[in-house]
């Protein structure tokens, strides 16, 4: 049978398929699926996907124009723009899913029309202009733009109040996190240009390592950055003591580091009761408790949490997700906390011997209804 005949045979089979399960029941399908229909459905699905994920579309445009750039350098600007936007905006989307209330905007590279510029109007009404290199030097563009963007936009409010070494270490870690999944040359350029020098500062280097441990436990963004975001919202409208804030942030980082390094089955750590950050972490995980004692043990535990806590972080194995949701549902009317967000994430925690092992965790963030937000936007 020739290839054409085989194709015709398959088409006929698809268009008129019938079979019977029993003698008296016949199922008849009349499938008219043409390549045109398949392509249309696929295109619509792609369109919806890219509409929902514009940063992925930016990455697609970057990929196409990267190849087009080999043919003509007319595509250089388009490639630079979409490659940068795709990378930064993809990171932002991930972070904004993990951290609520984070006040951060997506980036849009806008090429200035140089013909319209002159010294007089630029001095009067001009805006900041950043130079971007040709795409031969795109790694440098990515590193420079990423650091500038993180320094400018990431935790903008909280960074106005925390100590310089805390601010710089957070920027360095966030930028490292943004770039760590890119090709190794980009990360290397970042290390050579920025990190190496900053890591000579012991305070920054030590905090960077601590963030790394906290992030391994899956709580860098959902708890540390989240609490700093809340802190930024709060101190805006209050008389503040800079040293108190520096110390509180130092204690917050140390508290979360203790949590990140705690061994399995070690007792829960105390609530964090600072002037600006007040929260509790509860672990819903001991399997014998979940299986044998059931929901009531945890409901009582959550109801006992001091209501002065503004946030409660409920953490458990992802297998306990429905159990945790059910526990919350049964006590939500009495505790006065609403679910701010929930998420499943990969974490590396310590076993009873202190060795690392991987788990899939589930986190529910509950926010006290009475918390006043002074400055969200």
């Amino acid at each position, binding site marked *: 049978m020739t290839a054409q005949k085989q194709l015709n045979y398959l088409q006929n089979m698809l268009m008129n398929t019938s079979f019977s399960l029993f003698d008296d029941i016949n199922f008849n399908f009349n499938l008219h699926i043409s390549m045109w229909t398949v392509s249309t459905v696929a295109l619509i699905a792609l369109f919806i996907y890219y509409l929902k994920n514009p940063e992925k579309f930016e990455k697609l445009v970057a990929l196409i124009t990267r190849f087009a750039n080999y043919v003509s350098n007319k595509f*250089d*600007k388009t490639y*630079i*723009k979409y490659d940068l936007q795709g990378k930064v905006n993809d990171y*932002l*989307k991930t972070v*904004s899913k993990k951290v609520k209330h984070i006040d*951060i*905007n*997506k*980036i*849009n*590279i*806008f*090429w*200035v029309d*140089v*013909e319209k*510029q*002159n*010294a007089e109007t*630029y*001095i*009067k009404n*001009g*805006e*900041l*202009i*950043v*130079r*971007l*290199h*040709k795409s031969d030097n795109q790694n*440098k563009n990515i590193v*420079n*733009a990423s*650091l*500038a*963007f993180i*320094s*400018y*936009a990431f935790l*903008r409010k909280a*960074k*106005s109040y925390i100590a310089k070494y805390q601010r*710089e270490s957070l920027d360095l870690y966030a930028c490292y996190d943004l770039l760590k999944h890119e090709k190794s040359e980009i990360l290397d350029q970042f290390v050579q*240009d*920025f990190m190496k*020098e900053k890591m000579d500062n012991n305070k920054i280097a030590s905090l960077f390592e601590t963030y790394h441990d906290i992030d391994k436990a899956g709580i860098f963004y959902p708890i540390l950055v989240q609490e700093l975001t809340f802190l930024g919202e709060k101190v805006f409208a209050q008389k503040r003591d800079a040293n108190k804030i520096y110390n509180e942030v130092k204690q917050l980082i140390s508290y979360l580091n203790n949590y990140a390094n705690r061994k399995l089955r070690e007792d829960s750590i105390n609530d964090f009761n600072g002037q600006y950050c007040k929260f509790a972490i509860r672990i819903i995980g001991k399997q014998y408790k979940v299986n044998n004692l059931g929901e009531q043990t945890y409901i009582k535990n959550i109801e006992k949490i001091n209501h002065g806590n503004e946030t409660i972080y409920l953490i458990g194995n992802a297998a306990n997700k429905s159990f945790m949701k059910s526990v919350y549902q049964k006590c939500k009317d009495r505790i006065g906390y609403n679910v701010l967000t929930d998420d499943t994430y990969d974490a590396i925690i310590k076993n009873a011997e202190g060795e690392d092992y991987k788990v899939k965790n589930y986190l529910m963030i509950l926010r006290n209804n009475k918390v006043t937000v002074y400055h969200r936007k």
Partner: protein
Amino acid sequence: MNKRNLNAVHDEDLNQLLKNLGLIEKLNEGKLKCKFTGKVITFENLYSIFPESGDIKIVCDSPEAIKLFTEYANEHKF
């Protein structure tokens, strides 16, 4: 999520921009200095341009300058 514009100039347009802003001669003579590090600005190390107090300020691409510049931009709400 809202978008924030970042004005940019491509390598190919930089020369023209500097000409239009009346900076090209100073650049060629080595008279332009980085606002933050004081380094002499060249075509290779120029990172950013912004107007301030009736003048045009230039920033070089050293890590320290970029860092100081972003903090400065943050404080001054660029």
